[in-house]
């Protein structure tokens, strides 16, 4: 396969997604408003250390924003019947998956970077490890955009079903990932964190901002990289199967 043509097809799918799906109501609600509301719910009225809490908030912000466009795209296009047109253009399933991931990742990256910039300038937050911050923003946005794309892969043309399903998966993860309670303070329940991919992103943000992550940033980055590959390949396998079965 011609690599430059493939890369172009990925960029075209990304551009289309950015033009159409960034402004959809469910993306704005679940990608922007929801994490803010969650933050306010847990923060207001409690005597919490904001420096300790902020890495968790950034993780949650990136998690929700990066994974909010993916679940919408494929079901929406199947409902509108534009998916068939898309597949008949010079694209392959791989370019559709990567384009969906990239558009979700760009959304998450921009939103979370803005939140970090505003937060750190208003609250004078420290920055212990800039490399870890960049790794967290890049790998985290790609990992959770991949999760969003994987969630959208089951054959359905009803976006609301997938949005409901994606929240069913996403919401429990924020409670077992060290967002509201730092990993170092979880004690006997610490093992539950290992199961959540969000744990490693929040830990990487802790390393970046406070410098006291539980795991090595290399381990956190490696786990996020593996998650990108697993979710991305999973999405491709399912959508390839759908193309074969005509769903």
């Amino acid at each position: 396969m011609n690599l430059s043509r493939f890369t172009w097809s990925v960029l075209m799918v990304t551009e289309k997604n950015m033009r159409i799906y960034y402004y959809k109501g469910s993306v704005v609600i679940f990608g922007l408003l929801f994490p803010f509301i969650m933050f306010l719910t847990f923060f207001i009225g409690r005597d919490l250390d904001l420096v300790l809490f902020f890495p968790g908030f950034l993780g949650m912000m990136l998690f929700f924003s990066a994974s909010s466009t993916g679940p919408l795209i494929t079901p929406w296009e199947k409902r509108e019947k534009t998916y068939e047109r898309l597949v008949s253009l010079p694209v392959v399933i791989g370019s559709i998956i990567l384009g969906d991931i990239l558009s979700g990742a760009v959304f998450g990256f921009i939103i979370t970077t803005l939140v970090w910039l505003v937060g750190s300038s208003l609250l004078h937050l420290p920055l212990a490890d800039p490399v870890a911050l960049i790794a967290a923003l890049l790998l985290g946005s790609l990992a959770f955009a991949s999760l969003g794309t994987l969630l959208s892969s089951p054959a359905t043309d009803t976006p609301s079903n997938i949005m409901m399903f994606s929240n069913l998966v996403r919401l429990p993860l924020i409670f077992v990932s060290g967002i509201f309670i730092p990993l170092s303070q979880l004690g006997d329940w610490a093992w539950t964190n290992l199961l959540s991919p969000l744990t490693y992103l929040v830990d990487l943000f802790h390393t970046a901002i406070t410098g006291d992550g539980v795991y090595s940033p290399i381990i956190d980055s490696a786990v996020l990289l593996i998650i990108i590959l697993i979710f991305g390949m999973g999405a491709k396998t399912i959508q390839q199967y759908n193309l074969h079965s005509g769903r």
Partner: protein
Amino acid sequence: MDVIEARNLKKAFGPVNAVDNVSLCVKEGEIFGFLGQNGAGKTTTIRMLTGVLIPDAGTVKICGMDILQEPLEAKMHMGVIPENGTVYADLTAEKNILWTAKCYGMDKKSREEKAQEILERLGLESRKDDLVRTFSKGMRQRISIACAIVHSPQVLFLDEPTTGLDVLSRRLVIDTVRHLNQEGSTVLITTHNIEEANALCSRIGVIHKGKIIGINSPEKIRKEYDTSGFLEVSFAQWISGSILVAGGISRVEPLGDKWRVYTDDTDRAIKDLVHIAEQNNLKIISIATSTPSLEQAFIEMTEGAS
């Protein structure tokens, strides 16, 4: 040169064989009509030809390139108008066309010029900045066509492009297909509208229950089934059809205020009709001879295959 080459295509959905061993070749410059009843396998076949559906077996080559092995290269040569002419409703008419042109790698200047030219040709220039979601079905179909032809494809696939359109939109679609063909595009069009296929296509493939039961020019298909001609006759008075059955007339059926009279011997049938009219003191208003239409040939073919 064959620009579309399908060999032994098979597709089953559960126990149903939607497409069963379909092979067809379409030559450069042809308008090939794919004719069949609803559910015959037309859309499944065109979806496999365009890479939208992966076949269970068989191969498809577009301009010599295998659609499964070299999908990006093969798709660069084709334009597709899917059933229901879908485009992005949240983009403007012009943005739909420009984005599609960009997908085909056209540079900025050519895609802007081509988009402008097509919008004018399809009568959408004044609505180019409006979101497609505000368009009627006919206008959406025109945008769908614009997106499919913006890169001047060598091969154009149209899946029932005129279904549900008004007369003017239908005419515009047909004229555009003809125009593109004259400019050198090869066209494969699926339809269940026989007259449309007759008017447009140089060759027709008839598909029935997933199998191709005949491929030929419309005229040859009609001739092949020209086993009996018919006459259409109308009388000034009301008559019972039974009085028309005579030596040269094999079958009679009412057709509005006329009678369709089937015969193997037109000359003898006319003489018989004149004789019957004289005998029964009837006044013949009109009498016209005809050969079976493509529609009749199609019905005979599909009934024969059943």
